[in-house]
Each structure stands twice: as C-alpha cells, then as structure tokens.
C-alpha cells in the first residue's frame, strides 16, 4: 500500500503525531491490562491511560529549585520528538514508512536513544538524590542495552543485505520468519527492548522501592505526561521493529495487529515472571551474555551468507 499524503499530515497526524500518541496510550493500557490479568487482577479500563494523561496535562508543572529551567522543560519535548521522528522511518500499521532512505535503521535507532539520554539528563539536572541515582542507572543501563539491541537488529539487516527498514520488511515478508533462522537474535531483541524501555524486571533505573521514580522523581504535570507519552510511543516503535525484523514483517494492518498482540503477550508475560534485577546484575548479564550471544549470532549470519555466496 502506498498512500500519498501531505508531508505535514504525515508528520502531525498519521503515522506521526496524534495517531502515534493515541496508539501509544492504547499500548500502555494493553500492557497494564495484560500484566494485571497475569497477576490475577482485573486491571484498568481502556480509557485509564488517556484519563491519566489528560489529568497530568491539566496539572500544574512544578519546577524545583536549583534546576536549569530551560533544560527541565525542553528535555521531555526532545524525548517525545525523538520518539516521534523515529516513527517516521518505520512502516507503521502496515503502511509504508513516511520517509525512507538507505540507512534509516541507524537514524531510527539513534532517535530512539534520545529518550533514554533525555531521561538521564533530566535526572542529572535536578538536585534530588533519587533522580541522580536514577539518572546514573538509566545511563548505565543504556550503555549496556544499546549494543546488544543494535546487534540483534543488525542480524536481519545483514541477512537482507540492506539498512533500509522498508526493504527489510519486504525481505522478511518474503522469506521464512527470522525468529526460526535467528532465535538467539530474537531473544536478545525482545529482552533488549525491555531493558531499553525499562520494563520490569529491568526497571532498576526507576525502581520505586529504592529510588521512588528514578530520574523522573521531580517531574510533574506536563513534563511527566510528555515523558510518559514518549515512552509509550517508543514501546509501539520497539514492538513494531521486532515484529518487522523477526516475525515475518507486516504487509497489512491485520497482520500488524495480530503479530504485535502476540509479541505483546510474550513481553508482558516476561514482565510479570521475574524479580527485578539489580543494576549490576543487569549490566553484568548483558555484557557477559547478551552482547556475546549477539556477536555469535552475527558471526553465524555472516558466515552463512558467505557460505551461501560460495555455493551459489
């Protein structure tokens, strides 16, 4: 499918801006509901995240003493725009990406990292102890998760022989699901995504029982709402990326919904199955296991391709 819409609409309404924010909130609801059902609870009703966001947006934004005011207000916006921009390069919902060029995978991933970076800066900006520890942890976690996640996404890219997300989508749609060909890559991608989004059990940077809300402790009102929306958007993008790369791509909206739902079920089950890892455990686990396995996988792929070429 190829829709030709005005770039401004692409940017502000669909698939960027409004639509993405709403679908993000819907994803949050789905996440909370699924986790609740796994925990034998009823869970929130569908409009809860919307209501939360509206409430937060309507509330007063308190700027604590001793912060850099401009940074404090700009960081949530940067985080959100980063996430939204990344969405433009990704074929959302079965439609083609709004923009694409050779190598947009790298740009998208870079944009996704803006979020964590902003959270880290936001935490370091305030004077509270909790935020500073949260920021340190968030940045530590970013450094340990970015690499394996990237490696995991590189696998399919190398297999497809392109850095263009749209082309990878077509490639995975035509071939067998890469989850079968590169199971390790899939696991690393999912877990890496959870670590990236600070979902449990990798939520040490915002562990409420230790450091209240981590880097975002001092945020309230609009800033907090924007961060939340940004995170939800990132959840949408992350899941879509994994679906595109490992679950046979998305050719139409139905396929998108079904595959994302299936992946979502796995992610929320993983969220509710483990105890929170300490930051040193998370980092250790990833550098020792994740990165190594990612590299092995990559080597195997390269070797396989090489072998294929020789045979051909």
């Amino acid at each position, binding site marked *: 499918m190829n829709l030709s819409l005005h770039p401004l609409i692409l940017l502000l309404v669909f698939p960027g801006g409004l639509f993405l924010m709403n679908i993000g909130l819907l994803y949050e609801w789905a996440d909370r509901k699924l986790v*609740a*059902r*796994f*925990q*034998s*609870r*009823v*869970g929130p009703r569908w409009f809860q995240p919307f209501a939360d966001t509206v409430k937060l947006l309507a509330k007063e934004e308190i700027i604590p003493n001793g912060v850099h005011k401009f940074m404090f207000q700009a960081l949530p916006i940067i985080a959100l725009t980063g996430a939204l921009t990344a969405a433009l390069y990704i074929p959302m919902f079965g439609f083609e990406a709004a923009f694409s060029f050779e190598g947009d995978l790298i740009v998208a991933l870079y944009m996704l990292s803006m979020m964590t970076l902003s959270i880290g800066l936001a935490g370091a900006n305030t004077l509270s102890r909790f935020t500073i520890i949260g920021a340190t942890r968030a940045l530590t976690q970013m450094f340990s998760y970015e690499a394996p996640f990237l490696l995991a996404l590189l696998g399919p890219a190398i297999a497809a022989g392109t850095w263009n997300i749209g082309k990878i989508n077509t490639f995975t749609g035509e071939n067998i699901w890469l989850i079968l060909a590169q199971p390790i890559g899939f696991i690393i991608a999912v877990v890496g995504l959870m670590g990236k989004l600070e979902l449990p059990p990798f939520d040490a940077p915002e562990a409420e029982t230790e450091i209240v809300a981590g880097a975002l402790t001092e945020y309230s009102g609009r800033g907090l709402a924007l961060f939340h929306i940004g995170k939800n958007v990132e959840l949408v993008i992350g899941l879509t990326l994994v679906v595109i790369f490992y679950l046979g791509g998305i050719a139409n909206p139905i396929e998108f919904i079904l595959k994302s739902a299936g992946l979502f079920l796995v992610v929320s*089950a993983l969220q*509710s*199955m*483990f105890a929170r890892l300490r930051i040193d455990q998370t980092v250790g686990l990833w550098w020792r296991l994740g990165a190594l396995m990612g590299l092995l996988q990559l080597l195997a792929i390269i070797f396989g391709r090489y072998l294929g070429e020789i045979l051909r």
Partner: protein
Amino acid sequence: MAIGVLFGDLVKAFFTKPATQNYPFTKTIAPERLRGKLVYDPEKCIGCMLCMKDCPSNAIELLTVDKINKRFVMRYHPDRCVFCAQCVQLCRFNCLNMSNSLWEMASTSKEAFEVYYGREEDIAFLLERAAQPGINEPPCE
C-alpha cells in the same frame, strides 16, 4: 535452579477469573458475625451504664430521660466506634447487638455519625430540650 518458576501460575491466572473485583459495582456479602453498626434495644435496658464506662473510644452516650421508668436514649457515634463489641459482651440484658449491615462508612456530612436510639417520644423530648437555649445537653466531647 530454574528460571520463570511462576510460568504455570501466569497461564492459570490468565485463563481464570481475576481475584479482585470492581468494587462499587460488585460487592461481597458480609459474614454473619461481622461487627458492624451497633443496635440498641431500649425496651430491655436497665441503665447500668457499663457499656458507656468500658467503651474504649467513648462512642456510646446513654442519656437518661426517666430513671425510675427506665427510659433511656442512646447517642451512638459510629465515627468514633472501634467496633470491638466490648459493650455487647458486657450487656447482660442483651439490649446491645452489632449488626452486619453497615460496613461502608463514608459520608459527606457529620449528621450521619450521630445516631439516636430509643423511643421516639424520648428522642424528640431530648432533642427539644437540647435546642432550648440555656440548658445545655452534655456536649459530644
């Protein structure tokens, strides 16, 4: 050594009814023995005042209308009550009981937390007397 020991529970929980409920819409039935709102029967009371004396939270006030004819009015404050049922235990004439009906205590006004028990004419008499200026009924303190 294992990982994800809870997996079985997760699957089970996902396919069974949730353990929690949508509270204001669905309610559980209170058990028979629940210690709820205090109920007073003025016909049996002889006015020994033991309930008032031993109440740990001063939730009971027994007001005498006519001591000889044993006519008493009880002013009960559910907001102070700790629902210990000591008064029920103490009362030898069984005129105090705890019902299992009231178990949600929230009200926007203070009136709900001042309950009068007794014969209607006695209550009316007492309230009238309290309304008159000059003669002050013992305050709620």
